[in-house]
């Protein structure tokens, strides 16, 4: 056994140049696989962050019927208790209550359909980045009961600026009567997303509750999680706990179905990439083994002649495949580690580029995952050993007399 292992180990280093080239080729394949994984996972996270962290949050709680057509009456059931309970949720990084309604924003020269949001200026900072996206004027404070924040595009459309007066018209809850309120433009924001910059306005939560006749009731609680992946799971504690009494918790994958589909497709692409790379690696290993086998045909003849059983010859080839893959995996892991480390430090700059209706606001920083180290290298080794079965069987079937004529 040990002699066969020793033989296999020495055989793979017999033609050093070929082995080094094979190890590099296989190693680069593995490193590419690890890097693709790191990149795609980080790309997904960056896209989700871009989609959710500007405004929507990673998940939202609504009354289950509310999101269909934003009916003002469909408020969250027991919202006060829920807001109190959420303070104790350790998985959350932040949450904020909101009300929202379709409405009309009228300036002295024009009018525009909008969705008006009532927000808690301080709590909102823990979930969204409105305060950081102001391009003119100032963000809201709790005391600003006549101040409205509008998008840059909306300001352009209505030809208004900081300090100008506008009128917000909404339908009151319950009675359906129109309610009109005058505000002054206190700030102009830019999300870089047309829907937000052209059709959204923010006022203080209590003011919005007043003009909508909601009392202390709210339509939406936006949640940010410490771990982005939690709200994309099918079942997670917060969703289970708060999806009751007619309320529903929706994770980002439900809120942004297109994005979820794209990410799913990206994962699928990673799978295809893995199959292609592993296929290339497999044929690389098979080629190396067969080249080595043909070169040593006479030796196999000698081994068989002196009484080595076919199964032992086959085992030797399998050990060679295993050891080649093992050495290649070590090389690949080192290369992958260096590659991912470099880009995780310096990032890949896609800022400003729009992809799948999202604008990247941060660099993409590929990052390590345990799976890159505990799944891909063992898979490669197992796969390569499996691939070695073909040349191993071929070697085992060598007829000694024929092999001995090959020198």
């Amino acid at each position, binding site marked *: 056994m040990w*002699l066969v292992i020793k033989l296999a180990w020495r055989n793979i280093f017999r033609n050093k140049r070929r082995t080094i080239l094979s190890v590099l080729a296989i190693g680069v394949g593995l490193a590419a696989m690890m890097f693709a994984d790191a990149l795609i996972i980080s790309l997904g996270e960056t896209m989700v962050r871009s989609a959710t962290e500007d405004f929507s949050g990673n998940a939202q709680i609504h009354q289950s019927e509310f999101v269909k057509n934003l009916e003002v009456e469909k408020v969250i059931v027991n919202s006060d208790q829920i807001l109190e309970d959420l303070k104790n949720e350790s998985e959350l990084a932040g949450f904020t209550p909101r009300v929202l309604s379709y409405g009309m924003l009228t300036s002295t020269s024009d009018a525009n359909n909008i969705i008006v949001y009532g927000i808690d200026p301080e709590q909102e900072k823990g979930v969204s980045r409105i305060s950081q996206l102001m391009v003119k004027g100032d963000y809201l404070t709790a005391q600003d009961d006549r101040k409205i924040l509008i998008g840059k595009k909306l300001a352009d459309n209505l030809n208004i600026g900081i300090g100008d007066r506008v009128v917000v018209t909404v339908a009151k809850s319950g009675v359906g009567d129109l309610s009109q309120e005058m505000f002054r433009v206190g700030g102009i924001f830019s999300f870089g997303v047309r829907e937000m910059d052209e059709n959204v306005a923010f006022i203080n939560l209590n003011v919005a509750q007043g003009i909508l006749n909601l009392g202390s009731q709210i339509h939406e609680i936006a949640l940010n999680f410490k771990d982005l992946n939690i709200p994309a799971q099918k079942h997670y504690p917060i969703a289970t706990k708060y999806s009751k009494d007619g309320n529903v918790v929706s994770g980002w994958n439900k809120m942004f179905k297109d994005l979820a589909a794209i990410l799913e497709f990206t994962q699928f692409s990673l799978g295809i990439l893995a199959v292609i790379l592993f296929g290339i690696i497999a044929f690389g290993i098979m080629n190396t083994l067969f080249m080595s086998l043909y070169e040593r045909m*006479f030796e196999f003849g000698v081994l068989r002649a002196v009484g*080595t059983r076919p199964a032992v010859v086959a085992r030797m080839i399998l050990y060679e495949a295993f050891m080649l893959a093992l050495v290649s995996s070590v090389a690949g892991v080192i290369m992958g580690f260096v590659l991912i480390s470099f880009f995780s430090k310096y990032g890949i700059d896609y800022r400003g580029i729009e992809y799948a209706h999202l604008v990247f606001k941060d660099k993409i920083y590929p990052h390590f995952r345990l799976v890159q180290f505990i799944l891909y290298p063992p898979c490669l080794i197992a796969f390569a050993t499996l691939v070695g079965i073909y040349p191993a069987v071929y070697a085992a079937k060598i007829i*000694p007399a024929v092999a*001995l004529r090959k020198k």
Partner: protein
Amino acid sequence: MISNSGDILRTESVMKTYMSGEIEVTALHKINIAIKKGEFTAIAGPSGSGKSTLLNLLSGLDRPSSGKVFIDQKPISDMSGNQLSDFRRDHIGFIFQSYNLIPVLTVKENIEYIMLIQGVPEAERAQRVNDVLKDVGLTTMGNRRPAQLSGGQQQRVAIARAVVSRPSIILADEPTANLDSVTADNLIDMMRSLNETKGITFLFSTHDKRIMDHSKRLIILKDGNIDSDT
């Protein structure tokens, strides 16, 4: 072990044909031959006369197209691949024209290889390796790789490898073909000595007149037939 009374190897009307392109070539025509224990026999003949083919059939490295080869009175056609491997491992030693040592193993490891697959205990292996290295005059070369040895030294290692597993017969295919005359003489003397002192049976395929001269029995093959057996 093979019984002392019987033939070690025996053939009955052994024929071997093979295809050369689309033409069927007969390498051996109904050969009948028996090798007894203690023989020092040479099979000679011109190139293409069937010497190596006969050696391959006798050792079970190849199977005859017709006829039978008996090893220890058992026809090899009844043996499975593993049984044949085990038989060669335990009863036949090989010496090839081009030495054919395993280049990645040291001299000691090359010699030890067959004993390892025979399952000989480590201490005994070490003792037998040292003894045989002394017999072939390579005591100080045990840790060298074959590439670090001369042709003659490599062939000595090949002889040591063939002898060390204590086979019933050693089949040597042109063992002196690649050696200078002095080295070849030394090797022939060494093999003759092993035959006489240890009773090891040798069967050569050779062109070398010196081996023929030292042989106790000489079989001449011509065009796949036995031309003479003296």
